[in-house]
């Protein structure tokens, strides 16, 4: 089924001849922001906006390039259903005889869609940030990192081999580290940055080892070649399963899946535009993208690998949605909602809903970027992240409010907003698999419905607490007002996409998205009214209950006073995962294991060396004074004399010691040589 990817790899040259210019130039897309990062770091400070304008220009160029490539790609797909993409590469290096690593790019429907997502969101975020970050420290540094971040993501999207993907992958890791820790004067911010980097790196170990396993299985890093061989059965199933699970570990880290999701909420310590770009629309979908890109490997390693993916995704979507319910920090609600939605995408891949998952990347990008930027606008206005400091903002900030509510409804998955279409397809995909008898898919199907309910519930709570009701901020000192144009315009554009962005994937004949991104073998019926009604019903119920509790106050619930109090406590403490990691992994390794290793180093290993030294000196003393001086004296005196001469010239020579050391040493040599000669070994 996946001759798709491999043919492109094999016949790259032929495709090159028959393809127009835009695709050939696609490699420029990641290069542009890379150059702009270098320029901003170099001379950005001298510009009036301290480099923000360079970043914006670069992003506009990226967006233009992405759109050109996108339209060219869908043109190719429209002209030829069997068009499998365009790939070109040069040799990056040969690190052994016959083991070649390429530096290349590959454009197909999947990559083209991601290019548009990254291009649009990055551009909006840059525009928004140029106003939002206006008065902040280290603006130049901020925009340079943002550019480099975008370059890394684009590199990941276009990479034609696994190592190059890893380069983009880790590049994003370090940029997100820099950006989360932007306000590093505060200890907790830099700690959040470290946590993000290290937690994702734990997953990266798996990613890296997965690359190795697949490399030795396929003798190649090329995604197309690996996929083709996996599908054709040329790689042992055991190898594929291990490789796929290891790769998925990378996705667990980067896409914040259980149990490595804990870094994402803390990452909200970074400036809000960063949260929008990195922790909603791009970096965190890298893990999903990885699984989608390597899907033939997972499919060939089914059922074990795919079931694992489905189960992890399902657990994640549930636990994160529950956590979103109890947050007071507006950004953390969104953070947990991101984790939950990523769980949707991951679980979708696990149940073969390939197109639907990628479609959810697409729709989620619009509404989640919108929500984060909207949250930034709100936070700017009330100078607080807490919903308990907000309320009643609807009248003060109409544009922010309306766009935000649109985003919320899209997230909750109401028709006709973008989120509905992709969510519905995912649920349907799980249902289809479940009907075929897959237990994991049944679990996923139920988890998705429950999550749909929970999502609408926390969305209702969030909207009610933030925009409606009585103001909870200090009205004497805080005077919320609408944000400047540069911040509002991106909100409006994203809101339009959050409404209409899903319409490219309408079920039936009109469905374009399914043509752009599809994988033979992972198809299911396009639409099922019953599923649509059930999932929308779940969402409506959730929203209704949420609205009744938090807006209308019809139902008074104080979780702490009910039987659910222990559950509430569990949620507030984030299932104690952070505490467990801190107490049982971080602290023991950082403070105790390291101290133990160092103690061994100083007392045992170095102790032995010092003891040997002392013994040698003592022996040397003894030998020098008492044993036959004639044998040693000549040599020692000559050497000592020579060194003494040099030393006296330099005037720092410590006489005495060296002679004894040298004596001991020469004695040792003599003994060994004697042994050597004597035993004729």
């Amino acid at each position: 089924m996946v001759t798709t990817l491999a043919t492109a790899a094999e016949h790259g040259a032929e495709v090159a001849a028959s393809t127009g210019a835009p695709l050939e130039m696609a490699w420029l897309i990641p290069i542009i922001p890379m150059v702009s990062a270098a320029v901003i770091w170099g001379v950005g400070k001298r510009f009036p906006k301290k480099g923000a304008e360079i970043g914006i220009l670069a992003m506009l160029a990226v967006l233009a390039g992405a759109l050109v490539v996108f339209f060219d790609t869908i043109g190719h797909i429209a002209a030829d259903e069997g068009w499998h993409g365009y790939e070109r590469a040069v040799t990056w290096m040969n690190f052994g005889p016959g083991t070649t690593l390429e530096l290349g790019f590959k454009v197909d429907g999947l990559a083209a869609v991601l290019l548009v997502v990254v291009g649009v969101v990055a551009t909006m975020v840059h525009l928004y940030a140029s106003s939002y970050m206006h008065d902040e420290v280290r603006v130049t540094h901020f925009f340079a990192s943002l550019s480099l971040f975008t370059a890394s993501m684009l590199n990941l999207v276009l990479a034609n081999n696994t190592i190059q993907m890893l380069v983009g992958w880790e590049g994003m890791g370090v940029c997100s580290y820099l950006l989360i820790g932007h306000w590093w004067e505060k200890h907790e911010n830099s700690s959040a940055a470290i946590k993000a980097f290290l937690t994702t790196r734990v997953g990266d170990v798996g990613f890296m080892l997965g690359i190795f396993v697949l490399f030795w299985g396929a003798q190649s890093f090329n995604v197309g070649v690996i996929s083709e061989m996996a599908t054709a059965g040329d790689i042992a199933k055991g190898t594929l399963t291990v490789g796929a699970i290891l790769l998925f570990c990378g996705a667990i880290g980067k896409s914040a899946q259980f149990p490595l999701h804990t870094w994402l909420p803390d990452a909200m310590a970074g400036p809000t535009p960063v949260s929008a770009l990195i922790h909603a629309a791009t970096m965190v979908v890298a893990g999903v993208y990885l699984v989608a890109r390597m899907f033939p490997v997972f499919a060939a390693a089914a059922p074990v690998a795919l079931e694992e993916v489905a189960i992890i995704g399902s657990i994640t979507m549930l636990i994160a949605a529950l956590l979103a319910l109890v947050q007071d920090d507006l950004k953390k609600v969104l953070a947990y909602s991101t984790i939950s939605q990523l769980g949707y995408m991951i679980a979708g891949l696990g149940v073969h809903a390939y197109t639907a998952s990628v479609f959810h990347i697409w729709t989620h990008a619009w509404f989640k970027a919108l929500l984060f930027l909207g949250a930034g606008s709100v936070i700017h206005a009330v100078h607080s992240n807490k919903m308990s400091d907000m309320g009643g903002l609807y009248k003060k900030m109409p544009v922010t409010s309306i766009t935000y509510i649109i985003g919320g409804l899209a997230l909750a998955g109401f028709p006709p907003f973008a989120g509905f279409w992709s969510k519905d397809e995912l649920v349907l995909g799980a249902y289809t698999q479940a009907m075929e008898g897959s237990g994991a898919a049944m679990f996923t199907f139920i988890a998705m419905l429950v999550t749909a309910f929970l999502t609408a519930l926390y969305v209702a709570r969030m909207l009610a607490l933030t925009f409606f009701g009585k103001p909870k901020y200090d009205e004497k000192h805080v005077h919320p007002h609408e944000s400047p144009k540069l911040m509002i315009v991106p909100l409006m554009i994203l809101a339009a996409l959050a409404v209409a962005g899903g319409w490219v994937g309408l079920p039936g004949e009109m469905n374009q998205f399914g043509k752009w991104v599809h994988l033979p073998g992972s198809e299911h019926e396009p639409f099922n009214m019953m599923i649509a009604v059930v999932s929308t019903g779940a969402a409506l119920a959730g929203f209704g209950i949420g609205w009744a509790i938090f807006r209308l106050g019809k139902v008074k619930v104080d979780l702490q006073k009910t039987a659910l109090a222990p559950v509430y406590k569990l949620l507030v403490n984030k299932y104690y995962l952070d505490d467990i990691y801190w107490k049982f992994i971080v602290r023991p390794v950082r403070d105790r294991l390291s101290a133990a290793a160092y103690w061994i180093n100083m007392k045992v290993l170095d102790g032995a060396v010092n003891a040997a030294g002392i013994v040698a000196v003592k022996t040397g003393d003894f030998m020098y004074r008492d044993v036959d001086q004639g044998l040693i004296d000549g040599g020692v005196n000559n050497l000592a004399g020579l060194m003494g001469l040099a030393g006296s010239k330099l005037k720092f020579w410590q006489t005495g010691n060296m002679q004894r050391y040298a004596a001991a040493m020469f004695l040792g040599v003599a003994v060994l040589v004697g042994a050597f000669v004597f035993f004729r070994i």
Partner: protein
Amino acid sequence: MNLVEEWGITLAVFLPLLGAIVIVLTPKGMESIQKVLALAATGAALLVGLALTFAFEHGEPGMQFEKSLSWIPSIDSNYHVGIDGISLPLLVLSVLVCFLCIIYACWHIPEPGNAKAFLALILLLETGMNGSFIALDLVLFFVFWELVLVPMYFLIGIWGGENRQYASIKFFLYTLFGSVFMLLGFLALYFQSDPHTFDMLLLQESGVLDIPAGLASLIFGGLALGFAVKVPMWPFHTWLPDAHTQAPTIGSVLLAAVLLKMGTYGFMRIAIPILPGPAMQFAPVIAVLAAIAIVYGALCCLAQTNLKRMIAFSSVGHMGFVMLGISTMTPEGFNAAVFGMVAHGVVTGMLFFLAGSIKERYHTYEMPELAGMGLKIPKMAGLLAFCAIASLGLPGLAGFWGEVMALLASYQPLEGLDPTIFRGAMVVGAIGTVLTAGYFLWMLQRVNMGKISEKWKKVKLADVETLEYAAWLPLLALILVLGLYPRLIMDTTTSSVTALTETITGRSSGDDAHVAQVTDH
């Protein structure tokens, strides 16, 4: 070009010595003249190194620019020199770093001064280091190897930190201790070969060495011990943190960037190709020790509060990756090793430069006292972050390729080696990369970030100065260039390391009956 091909490598070795002699002849106190002389000598050596790189036939596996002159006829020891794809990158690294060190010395000569002696010793050191990378005769190699000890001993013992006496003697004796066994190994090779020879290339030819398996292992053990101390491999590393921490900045830079590589180079040039059978026997042991070194080094780094000592310990882990690559005996692994050596030289050398310059400003290496450096001297802090991130192996920067290829190679070691052990080492090493990231990021948090301590709030400190930039820019550029364009090294090394693996498989699979027995055991 003829001069370069005929005498290039010899010039690269002896130009610094010539410079040292001239400097010694100048009267004391003429510091600027001495600096110019040192710059000229190391600069000339660097130019020769670059000319050699251009004249070198990249992709040719064998020795180039070979030269053999009779030296000590009675034992048939010759001035036999030459370079291949493995030695060229190291030679170039050495001449480059030495030149940059002299630039740095122009900025600052450490206490208690005396530019003349300081510069002359560095030049002498350079001769020893460069010589080690070109020697093809065991006696010649040994002379250069030992020659390195003396100037480094004085550099640490005179210009070092508070505990310099202890550190310098420990460095000297520990290395000497190792080299005794190495020398014994050399002698054994000489007496066991037929005809008796010290020639490295001759000793690799089948039929020249005719040794019983047990003795071959013993000899390999001797050589390995000598090299292992220098690398340093765990558990022979304890001289390193002391020597590094106590050495003056330039001493630390040279130690990290070049000196350690003499050990790993010795494995690849001497121990493995001459005794491939025992090498295959010892390979799993080396892999295990390397994996231990990676995790152990990282853990010890976590325990440090002293910036320089932390960087010193980081070398233990990084050299662990190099040794892991070597232990696989595959072209990929050897490539990883050479790349790792150069990358470590560039990155860790740079980190030691930074540590030194930070000390010049803050008069301490203690991390808590440096807090908020990003606010005080942001450019320095930025460079520290850049190098730390390069050192933790971020893809796209120099540190990445050596690590990732070493781990990749350990998945599939040379046929005849048990993959299970190596895969175990791979997993341990991969976990080590998380710990490595951990200590570097924690260091950055404690040094660069946070608020400036009371003590430094009102004091004005100079940010990076021009001469510092001059000494550092080439290294900083290399960190980026090697990361993005690894072919710069790979195109040179691949053919030579492939030949090295062929030597192992060829020699241990039948040509030489006795050695073949060894692998059978």
